[in-house]
Each structure stands twice: as structure tokens, then as C-alpha cells.
């Protein structure tokens, strides 16, 4: 790279791209050229920086100035002030919710400085499409070490000692998995990178591949060598075009450098990696379904044993790990199992990447040490709940996970602790809910997703989820009856017990955990026919408070049903038989006169 004095690290993750970061790049380059700065200031497109809520974002190096919520119009001023005259532009900096003054430096922003990056170690620091930049940050040295200085057994031992566990959901010890795959009998062996990230609201794997595809590839090559596999596969969702494109480029570059293909580093070790586009079903993330889909069959899970490690792709021993797991491997080999196992809790080592979404100020992608509390994630990193609403629950683990209530906010997060409270780590989706969220409605939403995504092979999953969903719909519509909760509990057990794969076995979790912590909300729906959060339309009524109403007619003008009547400057009323409960009147009223009951 040419000697520039400043590097502008502009985020080109999917979030920022959809907010226009490529357009900003063009404007930046045009403005830089106008001031003849194109040879002094380089624009580098990086992967996801994590702070998606503030996108498009960029970081100016070496000053470490963080700019956010950029628009095309800001760029002219920014280039002239910061890059020409050296004056950082305050109004484009981030101001934390609790403070008045903007914070210029990225390293001083709470969202970033509470994080610890291992899987995302290169995010925002490199151009993911340049292999040399990855190598510059110690990329592929772990591969050189694993190939030249370590035996496959030593590599497996190192991973075992590190305590690394599967980041895809179940948390199976990675070293143990590799050991079984190495011991399995078979002439050809396969490794798979599972990038079929299907949880609603989760984007950890996409972001890792987008910001640092070589870290995943390097992990895979090391793993393949340790196991003795000569074929690698990346099974990636079709909905991730940018990640796939970067991965294709990375594979090409690594192959050109001789880091993939025949005789890697002159050691006689061969590995080919191919990319398979996902078939767009949630169940494809399950190992045996994934294998079926990869072979070209319908993605249905099958009975285990035999486990994929003995009989996987085309009946050959197959080791499947998640994107984040693979991305952790190079750093463990480079820095040692001891270093890695010093981070985290007794049973869960290292860090975990979470996508923090929902009713939280700083939505985005964070990597934190295991053992961090939910409170730290929601309040210190997430910045708390927008609009000063009350926190209600956090949903972890996607549709298969559970809701964790406020009383457990100080729970340290690891695989076991989450299971104890009725949720799971899952792949790392974390949805924050506030007082305006109805927990019965949440359970209904997740079951609707799972009902659609059940492959239909096991009766209990196919029919059971459908019936449970039907009951939840009924409750939300105000037709719940005595015994519904007990029926849901009983069905949950049945579905759990008689489903082949994890989809069915975990599907009742959203119902079980919401009944466990928010039974009162279910009871209010069933017995009192009311929705405490004011969400379920059949159970709420909008009324106008006569004392507060000024008769401004704003609500009447906006009501799509013309259901609001009243004279100017006189209190208005809503005709309930016309009202469709769209909530427009509530939203537009300036005097807080409309209430939901």
C-alpha cells in the first residue's frame, strides 16, 4: 500500500451498506480529489464495525476518530475540515445517551471499550478483500505453526486444553469433536463450516465472514490438517451475498498463495474448500439436515447415531463447526490454550459474539468475554432502553431459546447458566424487550416461525408446534380458556421428547420460559381478557380522556376509519365498533389524551 498519512476505515458490512456506505465512499473519493488529497488520505472499506445502530460509521486512523450516521451531505464539510484543515468535526461524532458532549475517540466509547475481540480481532482494522492485510495482522502464522511445528495430535490437544466449545448453539467441546473425527475410520474426510445462520435477528456469522473471511479459512485449514480431512465445505445462506462474495475472493487469494489446494506450505497436505449455497430453511443449520442439503437432498434430519463424525457427507467422516468456532482457532494456536482458557468462566472459555437487537439504544454486534452479565450487555454496551421504558426481558438463543426476566439481569452468561434459567446460548442472538412487549405475543411469534420451519418429518414437531401455536393465537385473540396453560405445558414436554433434532427439541422453549417467568400475563389474557402490555388487538381498547382532550381534531383527521367524532375544542370520542386499533390516534395525540386499556 502507498504511504498515506490517514486511513479512513469506512464500514462496508451489510448494515452500513444498506445505509449507503458505498455512496459515501464515492463522495469521499470525489471530495478528496477536489482538494488534491487522494494521495494522502486512503479510503479503506472494512467489514462490520459492530455499531450498526449508528451506521454508516467510519473510523479515521491514526487519530482514532469515530464518525457516525453519515450522509452524503456531511462529506464535503468533513473532508474540508478534518482532512484538509485537520479539525475533527464534532457534530458527526457519537454522543453517549447519558452524556452531553460527543466522544471523539473510538476507544473511549463504552460500546467498544467493554468488548474483547478474538473472533472479530480484525474487524474494522483490515480490508477483508486483501489477504496481505490479514497476513500483516499475523494471519496464517498459526497455519504455518500448526503445519510445521506441531503434529495433528498436538493441535487437537491445544484446542482441547483451550476449552473452546461450539459457538453454533450446543456448545460441544471442539477439541473432543476433532479427536473423534481424527479417530474415525475412512479414507476421505470432510470438514464443514456451518454458515447457515437462521435465527431471526442474528448476524454474528455473517459479520465475521464479511469482516475477516481469512480467519475462518485459516481455522478450517488448521482443523482439516488436525483431523486429516482433504475436503472443506462452507455451507452458507443464500441470503448472504456479500459474505459469500468475500469468501469466494478469500478462497481465490489463499489458493493463489498456495495456502489452499495441493501441497500447502510444501508439507504435502492438500485441502480444497468449496462453497455451497443454503436452501433457505431454518432446519438446514442442523448437522444431519445440512449434510442432506449439501448432498442435494431435501433437508431432513435423520436419526443419530451414526453421528456425522462417523458417517457424514457421502458417508465419510465429517466434522462440522460453526463460523465463529473456526474463527477462534488461529488465535488459540498462535497465543496458546493457556491464554484462551484464562478468559471466561469455569465451564465456558473465551469470548462470545452476540447480535444485540430489539428495544435497546445501541443495536449492533458485540464480542464479550464469557461470564459477562446481561446487565452489562444491555446497559453498559447497549446503552439501555430507548425512551426510558422499563426493561422486561432478554430473549437469547433465537427461536429455540428462552426469555430471561429482569430479576435475572445479573446472571453471568455462559452455556450452563443460560440452560439453568431455561434458555440457551444458541448462536448468540440477543433480543431486548421492554414493557411494551407482550410475552404471550412473543411466544406466539416464535412458534409461528418454528411452525413454518419444521421440516415435518417428526409428527410431534410438525403437529405439536401447530397445535401449540393455535392455542397461543386463541389466547391472544381473547378466546383463551381455563386449562390452556396446562395444555401448553403438556404439549411442550411431548414435542421435546419425541422430536429427532434440536429444532423440535427446543421449539417449546419460548413457551416454557414465558410461562415460567410471565405466567401472570398468560392469566391476564385468559381470565381477565386483557393484554397488560397493550399489544394484542382483540384485548385492548383505545379511549380518549375527556379532561385531557383539547379538541384539536388531529386524531380525527388521522383516523383511517373515521371512527373519531367530536366538535372542535370539545372532547372527542372513539366509536368502538368502527375502531380497528391501529393506534394512530395514540401516536399523534400531543396532549397524551389517548390511552390503551
Amino acid at each position, binding site marked *: 500500500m502507498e504511504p498515506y498519512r490517514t486511513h479512513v476505515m469506512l464500514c462496508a458490512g451489510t448494515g452500513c451498506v444498506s445505509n449507503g456506505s458505498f455512496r459515501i465512499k464515492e463522495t469521499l473519493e470525489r471530495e478528496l480529489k477536489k482538494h488534491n488529497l487522494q*494521495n494522502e488520505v486512503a479510503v479503506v472499506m472494512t467489514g462490520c464495525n459492530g455499531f450498526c445502530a449508528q451506521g454508516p460509521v467510519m473510523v479515521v486512523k491514526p487519530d482514532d476518530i469515530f464518525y457516525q450516521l453519515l450522509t452524503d451531505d456531511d462529506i464535503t464539510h468533513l473532508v474540508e475540515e478534518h482532512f484538509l484543515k*485537520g479539525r475533527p468535526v464534532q457534530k458527526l461524532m457519537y454522543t453517549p445517551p447519558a452524556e452531553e458532549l460527543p466522544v471523539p475517540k473510538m476507544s473511549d466509547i463504552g460500546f467498544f471499550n467493554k468488548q474483547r475481540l478474538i473472533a472479530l480481532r480484525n474487524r474494522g482494522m483490515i480490508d477483508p478483500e486483501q489477504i496481505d492485510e490479514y497476513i500483516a495482522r499475523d494471519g496464517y502464522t498459526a497455519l504455518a505453526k500448526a503445519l510445521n511445528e506441531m503434529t495433528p495430535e498436538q493441535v487437537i490437544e491445544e484446542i482441547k486444553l483451550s476449552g473452546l466449545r461450539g459457538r453454533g448453539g450446543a456448545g460441544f467441546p471442539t477439541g473432543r469433536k476433532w479427536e473423534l473425527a481424527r479417530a474415525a475410520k475412512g479414507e476421505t474426510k470432510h470438514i464443514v463450516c456451518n454458515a447457515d445462520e437462521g435465527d431471526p435477528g442474528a448476524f454474528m456469522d455473517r459479520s465475521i465472514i464479511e469482516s475477516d473471511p481469512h480467519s475462518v479459512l485459516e481455522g478450517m485449514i488448521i482443523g482439516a490438517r488436525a483431523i486429516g480431512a482433504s475436503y472443506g465445505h462452507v455451507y452458507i445462506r443464500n441470503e448472504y451475498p456479500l459474505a459469500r462474495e468475500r469468501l469466494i475472493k478469500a478462497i481465490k487469494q489463499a489458493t493463489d498463495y498456495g495456502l489452499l489446494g495441493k501441497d500447502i506450505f510444501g508439507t504435502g497436505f492438500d485441502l480444497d474448500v468449496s462453497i455451497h449455497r443454503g436452501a433457505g430453511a431454518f432446519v438446514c443449520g442442523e448437522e444431519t439436515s445440512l449434510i442432506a442439503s449439501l448432498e442435494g437432498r431435501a433437508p431432513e434430519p435423520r436419526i443419530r447415531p451414526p453421528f456425522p463424525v462417523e458417517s457424514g457427507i457421502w458417508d465419510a467422516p465429517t466434522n462440522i463447526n460453526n463460523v465463529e468456532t473456526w474463527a477462534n482457532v488461529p488465535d488459540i494456536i498462535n497465543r496458546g490454550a493457556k491464554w484462551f482458557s484464562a478468559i471466561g468462566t469455569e465451564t465456558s472459555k473465551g469470548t462470545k459474539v452476540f447480535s444485540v437487537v430489539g428495544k435497546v439504544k445501541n443495536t449492533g454486534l458485540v464480542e464479550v468475554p464469557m461470564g459477562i452479565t446481561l446487565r452489562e450487555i444491555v446497559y453498559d454496551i447497549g446503552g439501555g432502553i430507548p425512551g426510558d421504558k422499563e426493561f422486561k426481558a432478554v430473549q437469547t438463543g433465537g427461536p429455540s431459546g428462552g426469555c430471561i426476566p429482569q430479576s435475572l439481569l445479573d446472571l453471568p452468561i455462559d452455556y450452563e447458566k443460560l440452560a439453568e434459567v431455561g434458555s440457551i446460548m444458541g448462536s448468540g442472538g440477543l433480543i431486548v424487550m421492554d414493557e411494551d412487549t407482550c410475552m404471550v405475543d412473543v411466544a406466539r411469534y416464535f412458534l409461528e416461525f418454528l411452525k413454518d420451519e419444521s421440516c415435518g418429518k417428526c409428527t410431534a414437531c410438525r403437529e405439536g408446534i401447530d397445535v401449540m401455536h393455535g392455542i397461543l393465537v386463541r389466547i391472544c385473540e381473547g378466546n383463551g380458556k381455563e386449562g390452556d396453560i396446562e395444555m401448553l405445558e403438556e404439549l411442550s414436554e411431548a414435542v421435546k421428547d419425541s422430536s429427532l433434532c434440536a429444532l423440535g427439541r427446543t421449539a417449546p422453549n419460548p413457551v416454557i420460559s414465558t410461562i415460567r417467568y410471565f405466567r401472570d400475563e398468560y392469566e391476564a389474557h385468559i381470565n381477565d381478557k386483557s393484554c397488560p402490555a397493550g399489544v394484542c388487538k382483540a384485548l385492548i381498547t383505545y379511549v380518549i380522556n375527556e379532561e385531557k382532550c383539547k379538541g384539536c381534531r388531529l386524531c380525527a383527521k388521522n383516523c383511517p376509519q373515521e371512527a373519531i367524532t367530536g366538535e372542535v375544542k370539545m372532547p372527542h370520542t372513539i366509536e368502538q365498533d368502527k375502531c380497528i386499533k391501529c393506534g394512530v390516534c395514540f401516536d399523534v395525540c400531543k396532549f397524551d389524551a389517548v390511552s390503551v386499556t
Partner: protein
Amino acid sequence: MPKIKPEDLKKIREQMSRTMSLRDGDARAKITVHMGTCGIAAGARTIMSTLLALTEEEQAKDIILTASGCAGLCSREPMITVELKGQAPVKYVELDEEKTKKIFSDHVLSGTVVEEYALAMGSERLG
């Protein structure tokens, strides 16, 4: 692109180290060119290009070159501030290409302050 050997990784790292140290913000020396309107009018651009060329010429990997606003002494521009790691920053005034070259070789590369061009040691107190 030729196939690489393990020892080539180190070569690539060295080639890239200047780019990377700039991103890490970690360097032995930091040169700030004051580029307010006054600085630019007095010729700060030439100073900046000279410094860029010098760092390139010397293959200097541990030097950060950056711009900042007016230093408040508009009558004596162009100005630069040189800050070696662990030492107080030094401000130089009324620069031209020749003076800049001397500061670069004596101070930035060898660590000897060029007193004849220096205005003062240290910066204003903040806050």
C-alpha cells in the same frame, strides 16, 4: 501471484507494517502539520508533501504523519509539531522545504531537536 512459504509471511508483514502501525496509532514519532487556513496559505501543503516523500524515501515504518488545525500562531506558519514517543512535543515555525528536511533527519530520525527552528517545547495545558 506466486505460492508463498512460511518465511514469506514475515516479508509480507514487514511490507505492510507501515500501513498497519498507522491504523494501530502506535508509532515512535508523530509529526503534525498545522493546516488551518493560515497554514495552508503559508505553504503547509508543500511541507506535507515533503514529509510524505521523506517518510516514503526512508521507508520509515514507525512514523505517523497527520494534520491538525491552526496552532494559534498564524504569523509564523507553516508550522509542524514533532512528538517522539515518551518526549515532550516540539513546535517548529516558519518552515520551508529545506528546514523540514533537516528537522526530519535530525529530530525525527536521530532524536536531536533542531533548536534554531524550534519555537518551544511542550504544548498548551488543556482544560
